[in-house]
């Protein structure tokens, strides 16, 4: 409970800044709209209004200020508009509808989870190889690091196009992009974790004449668990970003990424904002799930008090 107050304070500050920013961001649009609706505004011509700063315009047309929060196509929507749009497109729409964010969320989430599973599996396998074989340490690790220096926005269309020309479409290309982003934190975390036992713990196993497999299962793997969970939390959010990025360059018709593009291209900022927030909430829930899993697992293993 003592964590709630600081969190609420930060949320309140962000919301406050947001609410305050809405008026200057939207005042020109709102004044234009009010004039079309027959309200007398100053200055009278749009051209003249362009020369007036946002705050000055708001000060000269105080009656229009409430309207900045209710525009259909605002530059910056008010928080209540985003919440209403989220509510409308999740609770208020049938899940099977193309308008439903639950439907689009599932499209993105399924690619995320598949990509995360591939990325995590690949990451753990590479980490085991890197820790146990010096050649892999020297040969694989530089490539793993280099892979993350290529902007995913440049790479994603290539992956989609190449896989499309091979006849693979839909879930898998997006999942590959997710895996590409999520395997790296797992590799780095697991390598660190598998190497975390100190010399004394390794020597102890030598005094028992334990073989390498016993060293792995009884010492290195359990010792790496806290590192693995930290990596999984980074990996799952990276996987979600990967899936969304995979939807952007291809004109995908479904998914959070598709919704963001649609909102942008058709001048519906509310749709974009709702998709953004839905994606953020999804990521928060996923990370939260892994945090809970981490707490329960480490507690059961006796590694957390």
């Amino acid at each position, binding site marked *: 409970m003592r964590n709630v107050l600081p969190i609420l304070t930060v949320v309140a500050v962000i919301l406050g800044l947001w609410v305050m920013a809405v008026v200057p961001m939207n005042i020109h649009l709102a004044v234009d709209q009010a004039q079309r609706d027959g309200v007398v505004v100053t200055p009278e011509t749009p051209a003249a209004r362009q020369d007036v700063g946002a705050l000055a315009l708001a000060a000269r047309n105080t009656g229009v200020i409430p309207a900045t929060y209710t525009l259909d196509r605002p530059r910056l929507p008010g928080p209540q508009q985003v919440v209403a749009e989220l509510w409308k497109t999740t609770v208020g729409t049938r899940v099977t509808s193309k308008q439903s964010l639950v439907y689009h969320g599932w499209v993105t989430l399924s690619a995320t989870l598949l990509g995360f599973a591939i990325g995590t599996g690949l990451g753990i396998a590479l980490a085991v190889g890197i820790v146990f074989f010096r050649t892999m340490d020297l040969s694989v690790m530089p490539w793993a690091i280099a892979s993350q220096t290529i902007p995913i926005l440049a790479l994603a269309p290539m992956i989609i196009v190449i896989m499309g020309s091979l006849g693979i479409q839909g879930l898998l290309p997006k999942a590959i992009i997710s895996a590409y982003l999520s395997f790296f934190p797992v590799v780095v975390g697991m390598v660190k974790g598998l190497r975390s036992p100190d010399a*004394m*713990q390794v*020597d*102890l*196993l*030598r*005094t*028992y*004449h*334990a073989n390498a497999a*016993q060293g792995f299962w*009884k*010492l290195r793997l*359990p*010792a790496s*668990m806290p590192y693995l969970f930290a990596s999984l939390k980074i990996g799952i959010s990276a996987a979600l970003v990967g899936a969304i990025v995979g939807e952007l360059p291809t004109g995908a018709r479904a998914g959070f990424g598709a919704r963001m593009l649609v909102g942008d291209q058709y001048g519906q900022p509310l749709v974009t904002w709702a998709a953004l927030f839905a994606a953020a909430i999804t990521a928060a829930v996923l990370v939260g799930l892994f945090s809970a899993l981490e707490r329960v697992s480490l507690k059961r*293993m*006796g*590694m957390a*008090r």
Partner: protein
Amino acid sequence: MASSLHLAEKTPGEGPLAAPGAAPPAVIAAGSVDLTFQTGDGPVHALKDVSLDIAKGDFVSFIGPSGCGKTTFLRCIAGLETPTGGTLTVNGMSPEEARRARAYGYVFQAAGLYPWRTIGGNVKLPLEIMGFSKAEQAERVKRVLELVDLAGFERKFPWQLSGGMQQRASIARALAFDADILLMDEPFGALDEIVRDHLNEQLLQLWARTDKTIAFVTHSIPEAVYLSTKIVVMSPRPGRIADVIESTLPKERPLDIRDSAEFIAIAHRVRDGLRAGHSYD
């Protein structure tokens, strides 16, 4: 079976019926052991011409300042380091073979219990690795935990125990597979003096009951004199033996033996040996 045992007991030098005066065979025999580490700053002479016999049932302490090679010598016996010269046998085998034969239990400076295993699970670790049956594992864990006075703590995790209890658990772990030799590298160095006294007393009782051969590295003169049948004083640069003192103290040693004139005389000789081998430059 019974007759062979009978015969073995009559063989001179073996078992309790050995002829008086005949030296029992050395469990650990070192002859002119040399060890030089190659480091970035050039070779470091860690051990030079170390010759020593440790007989069955001996409690031998190695004492000396940091860098005198006492831990290195213990690691050589354990087959964790390989001497670059001389001969070293453990139970008549090379240290490497002895390690493969699981001839010794090793107790490190820190308890080094696995935090994800309970106390029972930690003691079970060597038994799992060595392939004891489940029933035998459980039986042995129970027995050695009683031996170190930790019965009832089997299901606790290491962080729930004090430092002294953790170190006792690590001794139980080293005893679990019944090796005849116990190698202990400053096992009580990180504990406070009261706990240390208590554990020293317990260790002596344990040694009396189990008839193990113990090699024990320490920084503490009272600890070395109190515990040992033989005290090996070492000096640094290069690590070598400065003096070997056979203790004349009786096997039964209450804590207040440390106030006796005999104890103080032995401690004095140890201190002299340390001083002679150590130039404070």
